[in-house]
């Protein structure tokens, strides 16, 4: 038996808003899932995430491992015969899962979003080696050897920066971060 509380109702209202109401027209054909390049490694398919979100099953949707393997390719939205903005739903679910503290089973994605964003705060642009190193350090150095080998090859070709590039207006970036800190949604 499913029970829906008021929090779930406001969740339904939000997902309708972020998809410009299009989610209500989903007729569960599954084209989003069949086109999704990572649906084979998802525990809950995009099609199911759509209907579960509409039903207000917030906790189950936000606990889903699928959010962290979505590669934001937007094929789902591109192929939807009903014009459902399913990519907007995915973006919003990822965001909500993060701000509500649903920690993904694989830390990698979250660590990437985190260190990437912090890198922008620090320099205004990203310095890839620093981001990758942070992820590797926090995930038991898995893949570090391959990274180092690849970096050396790219370095030889002049395709890796050895120092970060900081913008002149870095204070402006800091102000924007501060101004919008904890801003839960658009």
């Amino acid at each position, binding site marked *: 038996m499913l029970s829906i509380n008021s929090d779930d109702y406001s969740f339904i209202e939000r997902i309708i808003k972020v998809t410009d109401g299009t989610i209500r027209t989903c007729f569960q054909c599954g084209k989003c899932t069949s086109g999704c*390049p*990572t649906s084979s*490694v998802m525990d809950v398919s995009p099609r199911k995430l759509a209907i579960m979100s509409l039903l207000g099953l917030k906790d189950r949707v936000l606990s889903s491992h699928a959010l962290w*393997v979505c*590669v*934001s*390719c*937007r*094929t789902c*939205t*591109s*192929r939807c015969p009903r014009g459902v903005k399913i*990519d907007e739903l995915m*973006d*919003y679910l*990822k*965001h909500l899962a*993060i701000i509500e503290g649903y920690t993904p089973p*694989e830390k*990698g*994605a979250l*660590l*990437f*979003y*985190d260190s*990437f*964003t912090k890198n*922008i705060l620090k320099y*205004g*642009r*990203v310095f*890839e080696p620093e*981001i*990758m190193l942070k*992820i590797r350090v926090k*995930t038991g150095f898995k*893949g570090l050897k*391959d990274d180092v080998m*690849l970096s050396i*090859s*790219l370095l030889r*070709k*002049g*395709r*890796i*920066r050895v120092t970060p*590039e900081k*913008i*002149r*207006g870095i204070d*402006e*970036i800091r*102000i*924007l971060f501060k*101004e*919008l*800190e904890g*801003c839960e*949604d*658009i």
Partner: protein
Amino acid sequence: MKYCYMPGCSLHSTSREYDLSGRAVCRKLGIDLVELDDWNCCGADAVSPKNRMLMYALNARNLAIAEKMGLDIVTFCASCFYNLKKANFDLRENPELRDKTNKALEKIGMTYKGKVEVKHLLEVLVNDFGLEKIKKRLAIPLKGLKVITYYGCLLTKHPETRIDDPENPEIMDVILEEIGAEVLPFSNYKTDCCGGPALPFRDDITLKLSADILKAAKKVGPNLIVTACPLCQISLETRQKAVEREYGFQTNIPVVYFTQLVGLALGIPADELGMKMHLISPIPIVTEIFSKK
């Protein structure tokens, strides 16, 4: 013809050859690029999950700078293009979002009115500059060069930002055909995802998706894979060894940017186009084609 050029972080590091070749082509054609002053990172796909408003603000700062410079933005990078164009679309369509973003921008003495257009270099070359004019400047047509075009997702998928058909785009094909290359059929895979975004944290996903594309490419048998996206380029080029190890088939196909081939056809020296910067070198095949002339 003058644009504000937003290179983006990748073009200052792992995709320097795209920056070099794209700028060289524009210079040769007389397309004036003024770098977007003190641009910041577009946020890729990493900022939005953390803070959606911040994503809009970061892109709005770049748009506001371009607006002040009085120019439209051109990007080569597919990710910068997607983020800037999507932010621009939403900021124009949604007054509430624009006000909220401008409130943050005011704190740094900026404002964005929505006057800037965001274009990809492919659009600039085909729509603004014109294929006819490119044809007139051809120095060395790339006759005999067989290529496949690979577009990936960011330029083609989203209904509000895409520059061409999401399943079978042709904007890059028409340029390459114009400069004499033979574009082999690859329509079933042109916009399949390479898995690039998962590269930093689930490289098994990237490997599988890139392997599918490389396997299909091998069957078609091109001399080169041509792309317009830094993430696609790096996924397809750097995964080939791992694909061989994990999936047991060898490819060794160079993956280049369309700008490098256009540059060669316009007579720009290979060095100035970053042709020597690839891990799988396109130089032997290009030399072979040129020596036949």
